[in-house]
């Protein structure tokens, strides 16, 4: 039998709260350190313990990061999903299963490796047998696939930093798994891992942690948050880094943290901080964004620098809190009542999570408006490979603030909302500074900031606001374009789809189509995007939602003649995008227009 090296998918079915997450991460980490191109996706339930969880480990010679299109090796530990999991396997798949789960093996067209996982686990410590079970299947996998024992042990050490007993216990358990397989079973499957030279050193990190670090380096001065999956780890990341990075010798901090009473309050705090001249932020998810709508309108209208991270989960409503989606796009872009328009940054890699972490504050203070960052559960909570973080290449941009009397006197006429420079961005003074005081308000105001109901004050203000945000277009991160010279089919996509786009591209190219890629990184959209569309015969807008929200924005904003060239593929079911599903849908819409 020919071996298949580094190119298959492992699906591990457990229940959450049983310690499987650390076992899976040890597996992932050890593969990664062997130089195997690998990615991991956690499909966990919205409860604390006992419900089905799947972890998908994809090894891919092409470097594909998406969960694969089929499972090659199934680890079966959870009786609750046993049959379902078994049934979905293609013939010939490998199944490593817990013989002690009191469940039957009902398939005979697969390669079966029964392992008495619970029994083995009990030999170590009956009290924590459930926990140990998980690391045993890692040992079995290590043996079957040929994972380096050294790398495994290093990964265990990394996972349980400093906890000697835990490390020892896990290493013993790994051994039990390995030994059991070695002694009782024979490998009859083709899957192996092969060590590869590591070209560029990388590490695994979750987008939320990267973002947290970025915020710290952005000089965040106030974090107000209310816990909500999948954004909590972003806020907690900041909190965790403060002692190391933002604390003086007396243990005092330069970043205030408030656990707010809800998202409305968190949004208010962010505006308060921005109004007072500080860098305030919050991190939340869909329900929080909905609750913040009133304050978002205030931030837009009173022009308050403020930063809002939306780590998107599946909506509407409470939806699937632990599943991923690219929605809320329309809501972020046009949030709140009346007429509004907001700047949205869209990271697609952990490096960008870090970068936008600091850069967003610069934009917020530059444009004096709420800035949103659209991340999602997949990017935020799964581990992504990272080259390392780059230190900001420019000092903090604090925007147009009048800080002293000299600067103030230089104005021919000063007005908080006067467009002095023609870019729609006025100058501001800060409370406590002694500079021109104003009473900010969410009601109509003139260029001096005074209350006004005059039709023209209102009209002028609104037109300036439009100019201001619209003018930001080309100052925001430009799209990342990877273009084929044939300019046949362009794919416009965003955010975490970055993990899947190459695989989709390759699938399409296999059918003979030349595909260019254009990743949108901010709204309002950069003018390069229009050019990209113009250059290509046809463009597909690819997104992980039902309604094609990004596509809708493009249709609104593109010149008429380009609209017929733009097609929409939008699909969402909670799972990180599997290339095949999107590939097939793209083929379909292309066929409809005769491509």
């Amino acid at each position, binding site marked *: 039998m020919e071996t298949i090296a580094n190119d298959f998918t492992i699906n591990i079915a457990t229940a959450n709260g049983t310690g499987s997450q650390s076992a899976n991460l040890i597996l992932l980490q050890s593969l990664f350190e062997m130089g195997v191109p690998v990615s991991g996706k956690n499909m966990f339930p919205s409860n604390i313990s006992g419900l089905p969880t799947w972890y998908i480990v994809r090894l891919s010679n092409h470097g594909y990061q998406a969960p694969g299109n089929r499972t090659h090796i199934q680890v079966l530990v959870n009786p609750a999903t046993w049959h379902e999991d078994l049934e979905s396997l293609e013939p010939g798949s490998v199944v490593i299963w817990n013989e002690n789960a009191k469940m039957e093996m009902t398939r005979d067209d697969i390669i079966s490796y029964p392992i008495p996982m619970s029994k083995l686990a009990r030999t170590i410590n009956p009290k924590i047998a459930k926990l140990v079970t998980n690391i045993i299947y890692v040992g079995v996998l290590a043996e079957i696939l040929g994972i380096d024992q050294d790398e495994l042990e290093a990964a265990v050490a990394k996972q349980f930093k400093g906890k000697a007993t835990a490390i020892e216990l896990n290493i013993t358990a790994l051994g039990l798994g390995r030994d059991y397989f070695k002694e009782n079973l024979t490998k009859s499957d083709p899957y192996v891992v092969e060590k590869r030279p590591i070209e560029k050193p990388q590490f695994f990190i979750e987008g939320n942690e990267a973002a947290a670090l970025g915020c710290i380096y952005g000089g965040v001065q106030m974090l107000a948050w209310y816990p909500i999956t999948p954004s909590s780890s972003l806020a907690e990341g900041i909190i965790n880094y403060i002692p190391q990075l933002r604390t003086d010798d007396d243990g*005092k901090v330069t970043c205030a943290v408030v656990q707010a009473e809800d998202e409305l309050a968190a949004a*208010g705090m962010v505006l308060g*901080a921005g109004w007072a001249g500080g860098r305030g932020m919050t991190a939340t998810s869909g329900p929080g964004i909905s609750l913040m709508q009133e304050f978002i309108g*205030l931030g837009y209208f009173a022009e308050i620098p403020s930063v809002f991270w939306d780590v998107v989960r599946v909506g509407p409503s409470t939806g699937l809190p632990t599943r991923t989606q690219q929605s809320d796009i329309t809501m972020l872009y046009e949030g709140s009542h009346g007429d509004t328009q907001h700047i949205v940054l869209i990271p697609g890699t952990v490096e960008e999570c870090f970068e936008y972490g600091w850069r967003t504050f610069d934009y917020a203070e530059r444009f004096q408006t709420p800035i949103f960052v659209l991340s999602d559960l997949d990017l935020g909570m799964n581990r992504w490979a990272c080259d390392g973080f780059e230190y900001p290449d420019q000092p903090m941009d604090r925007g147009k603030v009048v800080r002293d009397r000299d600067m103030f006197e230089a104005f021919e006429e000063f007005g908080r909302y006067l467009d002095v420079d023609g870019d729609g961005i006025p100058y501001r003074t800060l409370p406590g500074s002694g500079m021109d005081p104003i009473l900010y308000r969410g009601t109509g105001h003139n260029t001096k900031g005074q209350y006004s109901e005059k039709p023209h004050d209102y009209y002028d203000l609104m037109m300036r606001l439009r100019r201001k945000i619209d003018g930001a277009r080309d100052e925001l991160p430009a799209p990342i374009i990877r273009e084929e010279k044939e300019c046949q089919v362009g794919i416009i996509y965003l955010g975490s789809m970055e993990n899947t786009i190459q695989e989709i591209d390759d699938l399409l190219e296999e059918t003979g189509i030349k595909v260019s890629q254009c990743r949108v990184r901010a709204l309002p959209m950069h003018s390069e995007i229009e050019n990209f569309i113009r250059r290509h015969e046809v463009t597909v807008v690819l997104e992980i939602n039902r309604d094609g929200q990004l596509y809708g924005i493009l249709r609104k904003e593109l010149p008429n003649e380009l609209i017929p060239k733009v097609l929409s593929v939008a699909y969402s079911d909670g799972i990180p995008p599997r290339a095949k599903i999107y590939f097939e849908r793209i083929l379909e819409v292309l066929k409809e227009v005769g491509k």
Partner: protein
Amino acid sequence: MSDRPKRAARAIKLNMLDEPKDSYTGGKSSLCPGCGHDQISNVIITAAWENGIEPHRVAKMSGIGCSSKTPAYYLGQSHGFNTVHGRMPSVTTGAYSVNKDLLYIGVSGDGDSASIGIGQLIHAIRRNMDMVYIIENNGVYGLTKGQYSATADIGSKKKKGAPNETQPIDLCALAINLGCSFVARSFSGSKKQLGSLLKAAMSHKGFALIDVISPCVTFNNNDESMRSYGYVKDNEITLHMTDYIPHFNPVQEVEVPEGHFTDITLHDGSTIRLETISAEHDPGNAVAALTALHEAEMNKKHVTGLLYFDSSKPSLAEDMDLVDTPLVDVPDTVLRPSKDTLDKINAVLHS
């Protein structure tokens, strides 16, 4: 403002900062003539002036309502933020987090504070955020034309409509129960009492709540209303006479009371002197304060004075362990950790 040229000497009364009272006034009020809120604005002006507050070190905060419009009518040299309905506490919390050294004076209405905003009020109290929080309490929603608010007393009747039958929320009782560190009630018509309570609140570090009965002349000043000028005058139980002795002028003459009195020292060294009137009220005793409020409610009376005071609670800035310099004044180079630190983090992650 402080460095503008000295004015020619004139017979204008100046405060300790050599500022005339004019430096503390604001724009022309657009409230109904006679509105209690305007009386409170005047007391704020006087208190800030007498206390020698630097106007530019004050932040005027408010929500939405007739009451919340008033920051436009006082302290014209202070920055301020007229936010959204019921959410001023959170905006203040954010501002305070980055600039803890300003004096935050919040003004709100009973609709703003007891209905839509009660959650934020409670949590600001809970955090003991440093601010003066004045509720201009008229029992109705003035700006939306006179619907009952959640503080309307049972049996009280506004100009139009049936008497209120729903249990009111006593915001002072609520605050005391939450461990609020400074809780007082007053009346917009009691200039002197309100003035000294306000000055004391400004000297307090922590959340200082002053619930001020402030009649709405347009919708709720008829005789059947328990928040009309007439009713309050006839049914006020004053717990004590109050005097305020500023720290910068401790020898300032105060009327020496007939009976005995209690002096309470505030965080900036100033003193509020409570002169006992009838029964002694100990503002350190939460249960006593609650009892007084419950009794007054049963008898359809309003008790006024300093109801509860506790100087031992850490304020929010202490809880947050902030550096001494207000965060807005911390230089960018300190806010952004050095390149070194990031190199180290990258190294650790790579290892």
